[in-house]
């Protein structure tokens, strides 16, 4: 028995030394990769389901931090045509008809588990990644806008104009449909979406990002503890974005 432990320990140390050697040989790459929960080269897997929990009681009317951060991260800017400008995330002000109680909250693609946009897309450009993130593959999107008709949350926008100021991580251009990607390029590097980061940075703490499949993640624990809602739950789309306080 003790021999076994010794053996494995020796192996572990050896691996550690080799690993350090790797660090020395290629510092930049290793540093970058070290931060990765999922090793580069490995596909996103369905063991995870990324989601978000938004606490509307902590979300203030007039605060636009998440929207600003999203625009900056993804290069979505106003062109002065409000009716055709894409919006990936927007603040909605709500007032309950009966009680008059008001809420303020961010609305974006809800990353449905049963996404209607994916069902209707004729080319398969709309798709759901294994980890639950719903995306548009712009290489095969033909711009028919059927997905926009199908989305119950008005989460999608059509790009009506040419753009040339794209973020290298976020390609986007005229003639295709787009929506919130949950900052997939950041998530793949084990970072949070830009909106969530900005919300925390502003000390609002209204947005929480995490793995809904992991019972020990903070988001799962909170969903297990508090009353949370899915918007338009009647449609049974099993959204990845959940709300608290509405």
């Amino acid at each position: 028995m003790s021999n076994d432990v010794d053996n494995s320990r020796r192996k572990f140390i050896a691996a550690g030394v080799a690993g350090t050697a790797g660090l020395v040989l290629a510092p930049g790459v290793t540093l970058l990769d070290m931060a990765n929960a999922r090793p580069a080269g490995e596909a996103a897997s369905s063991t995870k389901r990324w989601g978000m929990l938004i606490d509307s009681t902590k979300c203030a009317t007039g605060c636009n931090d998440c929207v600003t951060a999203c625009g900056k991260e993804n290069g979505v800017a106003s062109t002065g045509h409000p009716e055709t400008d894409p919006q990936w995330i927007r603040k909605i002000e709500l007032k309950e008809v009966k009680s008059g109680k008001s809420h303020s909250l961010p609305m974006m693609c809800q990353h449905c588990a049963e996404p209607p946009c994916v069902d209707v897309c004729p080319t398969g450009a709309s798709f759901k990644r294994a980890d639950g993130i719903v995306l548009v593959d712009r290489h095969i999107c033909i711009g028919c806008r059927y997905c926009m008709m199908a989305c119950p949350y008005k989460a999608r926008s059509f790009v009506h104009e040419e753009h040339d100021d794209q973020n290298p991580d976020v390609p986007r251009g005229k003639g295709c449909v787009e929506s919130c990607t949950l900052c997939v390029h950041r998530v793949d590097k084990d970072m949070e979406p830009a909106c969530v980061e900005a919300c925390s940075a502003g000390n609002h703490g209204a947005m929480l990002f995490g793995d809904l499949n992991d019972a020990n993640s903070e988001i799962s624990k909170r969903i297990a503890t508090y009353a949370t809602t899915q918007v338009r739950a009647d449609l049974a789309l099993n959204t990845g974005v959940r709300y608290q306080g509405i």
Partner: protein
Amino acid sequence: MSNDVFRKSKDGAFYFVLGVIGLVVLAGLGAAFYMEHYGHVVTGMTNQIVWGLPHVFAIFLIVAASGVLNVASIGSVFGKPVYKARGPLAGLLAIAMLAGGLMVLMLDLGRSDRLIIAMTYLNLKSVFALNVFLYTVFFTVVALYLWTMLDRKMHAYSKYVGFAAFIWRLALTTGTGAIFGFLVARQAYGTALLAPMFIIMSFSFGLAVFMIVQAVMYSWNDRVLDEVILHRLKNLLATFVAAVLYFTVVYHMTNLYFAKQTAFEHFILIDGGVYTNLFWFGQILLGTLAPLAILFHPGLSKRNGWIVTASMLVILGAFAQLYVLLIGGQAFPLSIFPSMVESSSFFDGQIHTYSPSLPEFLLGMGGIAAAALITAIAAKVLNFMPDDKHHTVSH
């Protein structure tokens, strides 16, 4: 016989008309290029009104295309000689209008340059992709059908191919209706009623188009349509128009029955501005009641000119109906939080505005012109003139 259709003396006039139609097609293509080049920002369509005027034209053409085939079906499938003689023309119109409608739909895409992708990457779950399949088979079946009707040697098969076309036509319109029926989140759509309603609409729109084209062909050839035949066709049209009215009433009544839809119904029927006007004056008054009055009027309904007028009114009503359904349905905001009043910088909770632009209109007209062009050329080359000499018209 082809000389019968367009006689030599009228060749000049024919090519002039052809030229004019061709110009409209070109204008449509130009408009599409313009939209493609600058992006859809130059149209009236927005992120709120996602589908606009081009889609109204396209859906009209596609729906009418399947409906016009009804004339041929009654002939081949149900063995009525009067309709049989009109089968070839009906088949031709079906192909032409479907082509025109698809042209508009394709050219409106954000990336119409990716046509090959649209046809090679298919998401089989999508109703849209299903429609692509339905259209392709429709073209083939109707082309075969035309062949069996035009080629004497193939006559024997006409009935079977005609039956296939009949079934396929129903599937096609059901598919078109289902495009909307699947949009569960939107108040205006998401009801199974839309599929049968589209079938009835197709009968009515298709026959109206047929009557007009037929009238043009007869008068071009200085021939007079037999009164008995005219009488039958106009009665059929009246039946279809009344059936559409019935479905419209049922559709709105069903919506009113569900409490959450009442706000939407209130919008369309009472205070929707342009949509309310289009509904009551366009669809109901001009597009339904007026033609019904003409078609049942003891005197007017015997006059060819009046029947053509009634058919034109039916088409006008069809456009009004599709405009209200398609654009009115989008103008009413999505209810994301049903028990709350919504507002945002993305126009949540407010009625969306839409003003159709010239390029959109030209693109739509281009589609109609393309259908007319195909019909005119084919009618010149082959004989599509209804031939009632081979059978006696029974009363």
